């Protein structure tokens, strides 16, 4: 019957699936406690305080699909004239699911000329990245980006 015809392929797929599951199990058990959306919110509150965060003006440039979460290139830019009266004071980058919600704080000034920073970050899982910029008038602007990570950072063993 058809069953016997397909059985080897089926067996192989079954084996491959179980192998994949076995492979991921240690990673799951080794993963340290994740930052939760609540931790993300409190980390943002530490920076922003009681101010209202508006959406826009900030841009995150990050690949939407990342093979290796250990080093993910990221560029954050803010639309600003960068004059002594109107400039970006700081850029704060957060994540949702790394062990810690913070990624980095970057302090600029009117002498920066262009409100743009670039670095390489680690991502422990597919998740949302949030960038918040504080302008010289005290207003906060934010944007978020979603990244899919196939190989997570932080979870591998040290040999």
């Amino acid at each position: 019957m058809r069953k016997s015809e397909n059985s080897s392929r089926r067996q192989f797929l079954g084996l491959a699936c179980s192998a994949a599951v076995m492979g991921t199990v240690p990673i799951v058990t080794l993963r340290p406690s994740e930052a939760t959306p609540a931790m993300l919110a409190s980390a943002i509150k530490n920076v922003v305080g009681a101010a209202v965060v508006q959406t826009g003006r900030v841009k995150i440039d990050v690949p939407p699909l990342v093979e290796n979460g250990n080093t993910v290139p990221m560029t954050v830019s803010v639309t600003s004239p960068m004059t002594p009266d109107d400039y970006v004071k700081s850029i704060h980058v957060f994540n949702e699911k790394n062990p810690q919600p913070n990624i980095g704080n970057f302090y600029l000034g009117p002498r920066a000329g262009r409100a743009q920073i670039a670095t390489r970050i680690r991502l422990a899982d597919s998740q949302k990245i949030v960038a918040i910029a504080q302008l010289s008038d005290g207003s906060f602007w934010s944007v978020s980006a979603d990244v899919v990570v196939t190989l997570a950072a932080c979870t591998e063993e040290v040999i």
Partner: protein
Amino acid sequence: MASALINVPKKAKRGEIIEIKTLMSHIMETGYRRTATGELVPRDIITSFTCHYNGVEIFRADLFPAIAANPFISFFTVATESGKLDFEWIGDKGFTETASAAISVE
């Protein structure tokens, strides 16, 4: 040993916006990884980076374990005057490293 790579244009026109790229060799151990025997590897990261332009701070960054190993940081500044850019990295376990670059502004 730790060492820095810095990319600053040697020459710039006055008022020109220049990009500064820095790379510091550092393991950036997160403090969340475990050895095969299950012990946590202690955190060892660079926590702070600053750049001074002729003694005036123009850029500063707080780094967290989520910054990848061998931290790469790039930012911009306006070329105002000839002089020196000083870079400093400070981290766990007493890590400090400095570097500088000269720029001539016409």
